[in-house]
């Protein structure tokens, strides 16, 4: 019987709930997560006990030591993080499903931090793009670059749009608070 499993799962920064729920589902079937890699798109599981485990994704590009301390005090375990500022936290639970964020404002702020990181990169892309437009010629290499940059910029615009949409949804819910 196969007791190890490697799965790819693609997810987007404005909708980490999807991957969180998927990991929880895997744990409930007895697939215990033991390794995360490839920018948190590949997950390795070991078949063992069925567990109820909450996974939460956070984005925090600038943190101080308090961040880890507060989470650890509340018995959250850090299972993966990277240099950009993505964190995946884990906590086993029995009845009430815990979350690292318990208000809409914090989720909106997480999205805003994401926009804050993307903005300078976007400006840089636009700058190079304008440069390419200006010097556009029949040169094959320049032309290829032009198209690559067009695709990149379009991707960025789609991402911004998605984050903004997610914020709009959260703001609608916030009225309840």
């Amino acid at each position, binding site marked *: 019987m196969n007791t190890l499993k490697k799965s790819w799962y693609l997810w987007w920064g404005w909708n980490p709930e999807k991957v969180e729920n998927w990991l929880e589902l895997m744990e409930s079937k007895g697939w215990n997560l033991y390794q995360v890699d490839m920018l948190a798109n590949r997950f390795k599981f070991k078949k063992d006990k069925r567990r109820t485990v909450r996974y939460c994704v956070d984005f925090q590009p600038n943190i101080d030591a308090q961040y880890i301390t*507060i989470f650890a005090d509340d018995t959250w375990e850090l299972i993966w993080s990277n240099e950009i500022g993505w964190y995946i936290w884990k906590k086993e639970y029995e009845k009430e499903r815990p979350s690292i964020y318990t208000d809409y404002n914090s989720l909106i702020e997480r999205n805003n931090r994401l926009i804050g990181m993307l903005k300078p990169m976007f400006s840089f892309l636009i700058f190079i793009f304008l440069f390419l437009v200006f010097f556009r010629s029949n040169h094959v290499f320049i032309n290829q670059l032009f198209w690559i940059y067009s695709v990149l910029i379009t991707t960025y615009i789609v991402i911004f749009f998605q984050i903004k949409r997610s914020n709009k949804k959260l703001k609608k819910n916030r009225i309840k608070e």
Partner: protein
Amino acid sequence: MERKMELLKKKYLPMTETAYYILLCLTKSRHGYGIMQHVEEITNSRIKLGPGTIYGTLSKLEKDALIIHEAEEDRKKIYRLSEKGRTVLELEMERLLELLNNGKEEMEG
């Protein structure tokens, strides 16, 4: 000074339950996890604040100087309400009292 208070009022009032309870807890010195425990206790487990929410809100409140970082214990920051924080909290309590009094009056009258 006056202007600054107006800006704070605009930003924090009406207050979210999260901000209200965090400020309320900090009338005594507490660290992040201490706040989580105390809120759970005084609301009979109705409100359980997540660590991400606590961390973010504390950072924001500290930046706006509504709370001050008083000391450090086992690498945990201990916070306390500042004068400014107390003023904002009192304004919110006045507002809540008004809501409650008007509610009672209209419902009973």
